[in-house]
């Protein structure tokens, strides 16, 4: 990994505006970029499976000391 300083050249730039490099290569006019985003978005818009909501619920409950279940998922 390179120096920390190199990693943040001009402050935060990820929000909102597209980064120039990515715009050229994978921007709205790129077929590859469009398909990639279409695929990604289709997954992102899927309903979150119950297993994750249940898991978080369980973790949260245990955290707050109300967990009657001693079955905290193994962290390993």
């Amino acid at each position, binding site marked *: 990994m390179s120096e920390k300083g190199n*990693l943040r050249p001009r402050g935060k730039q990820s929000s909102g505006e597209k980064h120039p490099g990515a715009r050229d290569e*994978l921007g709205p006019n790129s077929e590859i970029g469009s398909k990639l985003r279409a*695929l990604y978005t289709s997954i992102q818009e899927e309903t979150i499976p*119950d297993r994750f909501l249940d898991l978080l*619920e369980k973790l949260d409950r245990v955290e707050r000391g109300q967990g009657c279940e001693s079955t905290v998922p193994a962290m390993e």
Partner: protein
Amino acid sequence: MQNSAQDAGMDPGSTEFKRELLQALPSLRAFAVSLIGQHDKADDLVQEAIMKAWAKQDSFEMGTNIKAWLFTILRNEFYSQMRKRGREVQDSEGVFTNQLAVPPAQYGALDLQDFRKALEQLPADQREAIILIGASGFAYEEAAEICGCAVGTIKSRVSRARARLQELLGVNGQSDYGPDALSAPVTTRSFA
């Protein structure tokens, strides 16, 4: 059964960390699925990542980029599982990805399924780079941090990934999406 992240997040008793995690979950999952190519395996990985993240939530600073933090955890988990399995590390050869049978309905257009197959033929490092930059919305610098490599490495992986996808899908750099030919001057291979 209520099945929306938002509603779950509204639970007055839930911690802030949980709320943030829930908010980032759809994109974390999209990253995992597009990285791995199979929903069930990807969801197992997401589950691992959630548990790891939960266990080390003290090391997360509220207000910083939880998405990048979670992606890093998931990615590390992905590679450590691949190392354990050995064989699948070689998925750059497309050995196991070619056997994937994904119901087309799951991804809408057949078109997208072709894209997905092509994506899975990329080496994992190139695949993750192009996903992080092209779809997850990270800057090169952030993607480099997530992957623990130099910015230049990410850039070259993205370029190679894009070139390979174009090759696999038989598209050139020029867009089918309108008249703007100016946007793809660097990548266009001249067929003329």
